[in-house]
Each structure stands twice: as C-alpha cells, then as structure tokens.
C-alpha cells in the first residue's frame, strides 16, 4: 500500500479508535451503572463530555511542560495504536506494523505515562505528584509480568513483530496464545488489570484520597486531550492484547468482539472490588502474576 | 260597604291613606318627645307614598303591587292598642302605627271576604297585603329596637 493512502487510512483508523474508545467508555459506564442498580448515562455521554470540555475556556497556566503533558499522553496512545495491526489482512487497518514493532509498542506504553508524569509534576498540585509516584510505581510493577509474558511470546514465536505473532496464531482458536501459553496469558491478563486502571488497581487517580491524581490540574481542552489519549490508548492496548493472545482479528466485527471482551475483563473484576493500596498492588503484581510470567517463559524455554 | 268598580275601591283606599296621613300629621304636632315629631312626619310622608302607589295602580300600572307572600310576624296582634297622647314614646308610636296598619289590613280582609266578585276580591286581597307590608315594616322595627333584648 502506498504511503499516502496508508497515512490517510491510519488517520481514519485513529479517529475510529477514538470513537470506539469513547463508545466503549460509555458502554462500560452504563454497565457499571447497572451493577450499581442505576440507569446510568446515555452511551454517547463520553462524546458529550469531550465536546463539553472542548467548549470550555482554559484558565490555568502551569508552565510549558504541563501543556505538553496531554500531548504526550495522547501521542502515546495514538502512537501505540499506529504500531499495532488491527485487522490482519486488511491493509488499511494494519497501520504501521513492522518487524520489531512490539518493542516500540512496549516503549509507547511507557511513553504516555512518562509524559504525563512530567507535566503533572509541573502542575504544582501536591496530589498530582503523589498520583504520579503511585502510577509509576504501579506501572513498574505490572510491567514486569507483562514483559515476562511478552518475552515468553517472543521466545515462542521467535519474532518481535506483532504481525508475525498474529500470523502464528491463525488457524482456529486452539492456536491462540491464550491456549498455547496459558501461563504467559495469565500473567499478561493480570497485568492488564493494572494497566487498565480499574479497581482494585486504580489507586493512581483515587478520588477519595488524591482527587483524581495526575490530571487534577488539567481542564478544558487539555482534559479533552487526555480523554482522547485515554480512549485511544485503551483501544490500542486491547488491540495489542488481542493480537498477542487472542489471535488477532480478520474482520472488524471480530476485532470489536474480542477487544470488548478484553476490556470487559478488567471491568468485570473492577466493578466489585475496592482498591488496593499502592504497596499492596505492587506486592500483588510481583506475586502470582510474576510467578506466572516466569513460569510462562520457562515453559517456552523448556518446550524448545 | 259596597263597591262597584275598581276605581271606587281605589279611591276608597286612597282616602284611607289620606286619613292616616292627616292623623299622623295631627299627632306630630302634639308629641313632646324630642325627635318623635319627626318620626310621625316621616310616617305621614310614608302614607303619601302609599297614596302615590295606589294612584299609579289606578292609572293602570299594576307592576309590583303586592306580589308574593307577605310575612306576618303577628307582633301587634296580641299587644294592647294605645291612644295617641303628647307624652308618647317611641315604643308607643310604633305600637300605634302597627295597630293602625293592622286595622287597615283587617278592613280589607273583611271587604275581600264580603265581596263576591273575584276580581274585586283579588284587589282587596292585594290591598290587604299592601297594608300587611306596611305593618311588617313597623313590626320589624319593633322587633329590632324594642324587642332587641327579648
């Protein structure tokens, strides 16, 4: 596919990911509301929120870094998304996948949070750095089982290319890495709980302790940028997980179903648990998930 | 007494009213009690009003001539008649007027009973009712003023 149409298609894809990310946010809010016994907001509420935030006036000024932070955040999300093939076999939705893109993806997963950390720290509110420190500590913790799981997969497939990992899983659900390497999958999906920041691992932005944490000081357009980042980042993560463990997708509907299920997994847990303290969360990730991750790697090693 | 026509009867009635008027005028000149003279003059004036009404009837305007039932409180019925005298007070004046109207009423009732012409009888009854109305006026006044505490 020529470059120019590819770029255009990627942009369309980003917008689609944003739309999907927002929509899934709305659905989840609705589902959460139902388990709480409420009716809940309309499904399109996140769009309204985004539009509302765009219509507000910016009133704060915390220095240049704090302006850049949302851009980092959004950039992290979009960048991650752009690296991962969404639907294998449809060039328009394969984005900029290349050999070794998994490494880039791992990097981009850090990228947004780090940028956020820089900006939020500059915002001056004490709750922001507290939230950031919690977020980074927790991230470090869940990255370990996730990285181990990725290592296991890479070792299993022998490639750092997501495209190839997906290709290796084709031919029926029994070929999925979820089945092929269940231990790595367990490690990765437990890490996903922390990654998606639903309870019990949402201490980063716990409103009861540190009002929403890092984004405390962000408002209006910056906040909408953060929303964009969060939505696309979530979609990118789900697509990544889909590609890594659920055999990718060969059509858009399949992608929707799989990604939704992945997202729903964290909601399913998050809806019924309170949150851990930071050190408890760290202890959790360094416990069973890490063991599973190590075991997963070992399994691959032994299988060789 | 015999009457042959309505005009005759009305003339008779008008004559009666004039008699009453003259009598009240007469008494008004005699009473000593302050204000009572004025009362009697008013009574006399009232009789003139009655006379005017009757003249209207005579001219053919029967509207409002003692229509419907007139209440009879029967206050004067068992009270003792009084003779007009210079030291009359208000109670006596009312009594006197009441009795006078009652007499007129009784007269018309008798006449109505005595006559055989239904038209005339109706007229007499009407006149009696008219007098009853006058009596009611005084009886009400008596009931309100003299019998207020009773």
């Amino acid at each position: 596919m020529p470059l120019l149409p590819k770029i255009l298609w990627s942009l369309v894809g980003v917008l689609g990911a944003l739309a999907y990310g927002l929509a899934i946010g709305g659905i989840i809010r609705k589902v959460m509301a139902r388990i709480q016994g409420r009716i809940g907001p309309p499904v399109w509420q996140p769009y309204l929120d985004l539009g509302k935030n765009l219509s507000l006036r910016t009133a704060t000024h915390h220095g240049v870094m704090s302006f850049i932070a949302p851009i980092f955040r959004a950039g992290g999300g979009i960048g991650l998304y752009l690296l991962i093939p969404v639907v294998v076999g449809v060039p328009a939705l394969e984005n900029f996948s290349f050999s070794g893109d998994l490494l880039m993806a791992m990097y981009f997963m850090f990228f947004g949070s780090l940028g956020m950390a820089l900006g939020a720290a500059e915002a001056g509110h004490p709750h922001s750095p507290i939230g950031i420190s919690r977020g980074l500590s927790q991230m470090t913790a869940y990255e370990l089982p996730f990285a181990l799981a990725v290592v296991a997969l890479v070792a299993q497939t022998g490639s750092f290319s997501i495209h190839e990992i997906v290709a290796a899983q084709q031919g029926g659900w029994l070929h999925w890495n979820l089945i092929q390497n269940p231990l790595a999958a367990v490690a990765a999906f437990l890490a996903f709980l922390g990654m998606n920041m639903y309870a019990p691992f949402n201490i980063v932005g716990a409103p009861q302790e540190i009002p929403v944490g890092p984004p405390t000081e962000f408002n209006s357009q910056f906040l909408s940028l953060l929303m964009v980042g969060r939505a696309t980042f979530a979609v990118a993560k789900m697509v990544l997980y889909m590609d890594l463990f659920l055999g990718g997708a060969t059509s858009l509907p399949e992608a929707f179903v799989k990604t939704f299920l992945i997202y729903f997994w964290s909601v399913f847990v998050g809806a019924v648990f309170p949150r851990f303290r930071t050190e408890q969360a760290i202890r959790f990730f360094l416990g069973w998930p890490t063991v599973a991750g190590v075991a997963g790697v070992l399994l691959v090693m032994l299988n060789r | 007494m015999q009457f042959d026509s309505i005009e005759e009867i009305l003339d008779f009635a008008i004559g009666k009213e004039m008699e009453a008027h003259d009598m009240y005028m007469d008494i008004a000149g005699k009473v000593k009690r302050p204000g009572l003279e004025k009362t009697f003059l008013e009574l006399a004036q009232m009789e003139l009003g009655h006379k005017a009404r009757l003249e209207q009837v005579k001219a053919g305007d029967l509207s409002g001539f003692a229509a419907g039932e007139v209440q009879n409180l029967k206050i004067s019925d068992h009270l003792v008649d009084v003779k007009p005298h210079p030291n009359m007070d208000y109670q006596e004046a009312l009594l006197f007027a009441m009795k006078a109207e009652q007499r007129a009423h009784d007269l018309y009732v008798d006449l109505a009973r005595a006559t055989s012409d239904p038209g005339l009888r109706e007229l007499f009854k009407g006149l009696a009712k008219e007098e009853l109305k006058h009596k009611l006026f005084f009886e009400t006044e008596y009931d309100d003023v003299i019998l207020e505490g009773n």
Partner: protein
Amino acid sequence: MTTTETLRRRVQLWFGPQHPGITGNMSVQAWLEGDTLTQGITHVGYLHRAFEKLMERRKFIQSFPIVCRICVPEPDTNEYLLAAALEELSGLDREVPEKALWIRTLVLEMSRLAAMLQVLGGHVGSMGLGVVPNWTYTLRDYVLDRFEELTGARVYHMYTVFGGVRRDLPEGFAERMETEVLAKIEAKLPVIDNAIFDSSVFRKRAIGVGVVPEEWADEMGISGPVVRAMGIPRDTRKDFPYLKYPELDFEVVTTTGSDIYARAWIRRQEIAQSVDLIRQILRRMPTEGPYCAKLPNMLTWTIPPGQTYVRAEASRGEMGYYVVTDGSDKMRRVHVRGPSYVHGVSLLERLIPGTNIADLSPLMVSLQTCPPEIER
C-alpha cells in the same frame, strides 16, 4: 535527624475541605513522609452555625427545629435529647404518653438504621468500591421514605418534640415498614456481606488498619461502634436505659480487632439488630392513646432553673446534651456533646501518625466523623 531535615522530608498535605474523601466539610492538615502520614491536625469550623448560641436566644419550641441540623445523617437523636433534657428540667417527662415513648424509640432506631446503612456503604466507598454505597444509599432512602411518611420530611424530621411526638403513626405503617424497608434490607444484606466482608481486597485494606488501643477507651470516652469493636460491650441503650429500650430484647454487639474491619462488622451487625428492634417495636406499639402530652402555650413556656445531662446512643456513639435553664423562656446554655468531638478530633489526631495516606479516608469513615457535630 534535625528538624530541618525532617521538614525537608515531609510534605504538607491538606485533606479537604473540598475533597471527596473527607467526611463532610472539614479538613485534615497532614504531613507526609513517603506514603505515610506522620502528623495530622483536624481543622473544623467550616460548618459552624453556632447552634448553641442561636438556641440561647430562641424559645424552647423554636430551638427544636434547629437541633436536628446538628447531625445531618441522624437528626432524631438530637431532637429526642433536647426534648428529654427539657422535659426532665420542666417535669413534663412524667406526662409523656406511652405511645409517644414507643414512637420515639422507633424513630431513634430508624435513624440509627439509616445512618448505619450510610456508613456501611461509606466504608467501601472510601476505598473505591461504587457498588455497595449505591445499594446502601438506596436502602437508606427506603428508610427515608418511611420517615417522610411518618414525619412529613425526608431529612430533617422535626418530629420529636416536648411531651411526645408531633403526629401519630399513619395507617398501615408497620406493614409498609416490613415490606418496603426491612424485607428489602434483609434481602440485600447477604450480597453486601459478600462484597465487603468476604472481599479479599477489603480484608487486606481493613484488617489491622486503624487500630484503636483498648486502654484509650475509658480515658478518652470513646463510645459507639468504635468501642464495641474493641470487645467492650458499652452501649448507652443498655448502660443508661432510656425510652423503651429496657423492654426490648437485644444484645450489645461486640467483636475484637478494633480495626476498620471490626468497626464495619459492628455496623453490619447493628443493621441487623436495628431491623430486629424495629420489628419488635412495631409489634408492641400501642394502637390507642395520645401521642403527645398536653402542652402549655409554647410561646410563653418557661422552665425552672436547673441543669442536666442526658444521653442517648446515636449510630456514632454516645450523644449527650448538657442543658442549663435559668427560669426564663429560653435556655441559658446548651452544650452538645457529640461522639465525633472525641472521635473526629482527639482520637483521629492520635491515630493519624503512621497511617497510610490511602487509609485516612476509610479511617475517618470508620470513626464516623461528623463535622457539624464537632463544631455545631
């Protein structure tokens, strides 16, 4: 370590007054070392309305709409206590009819139930679980529905007044109470148990956190679920019996541990206890008779000089009213001694050092700090 060093390592952090984790409109000024609080000072006064001052210039009957505002979630204890104190000082207490006593007991128990439900939800709500607070607030709302039916208002009932209560029980109240409230609460409680007490996360967060040493109980005057969570069966309803509580069949709930979990557990048990007590009360409620004594003209009522202290068990602990009269138609002085005064200031400040920052909000909920009661 020198002071300067200490200061450099410590971050000052304000919790509140605008803070979703704070209980009500108050604030805690805290100093952090890492994730741990080293010192905390409670700041109150954001809700100070000067009730005690206002009551000094209001006639007795005019004071009574005001007292229920002292504690927002549980106004009836205040109403009852003011009425009880003034009845005792005026001698009206001998004329309060039987039925009024029963209704008062009912109202107090209902308000305890409502407050307990609210706090039980708050226990996990402060830890980020949205499900249970939604349910318990709904259940509390069912209680409020009955309050509205009984008293004519949802939140501020202004119902208990000198000599009795202001209105009779409505027709069919007991049945509606049973089907609309008690049955629904009992149906939901097991699921709530699952979501709270069986939840591994809650257990991790709550067990062994915020432990109040037992020896503080006597000297600080700790009361309510906090003291019962230490295993001490201290309950004003038993210790200083009032209204119809001596005639009701219930045991003081205690447990051990004295931590957040224990206090939540006490509250959970007391919800069940309240449900049971309300059933007992409604069963024994007299159907006939007046619900209020004959009152003198409240615009000119005077009470002979005297002073007294009356107490009752609120959901938070022992609530007390110290009332001084001087023979005029107004109170000379009324002092409201709420349990939060001890729990929310002295006890909280003693507990804060060493507490994780994330545990501050659950800790305050478990102490059931009610700022309007502290500053009045």
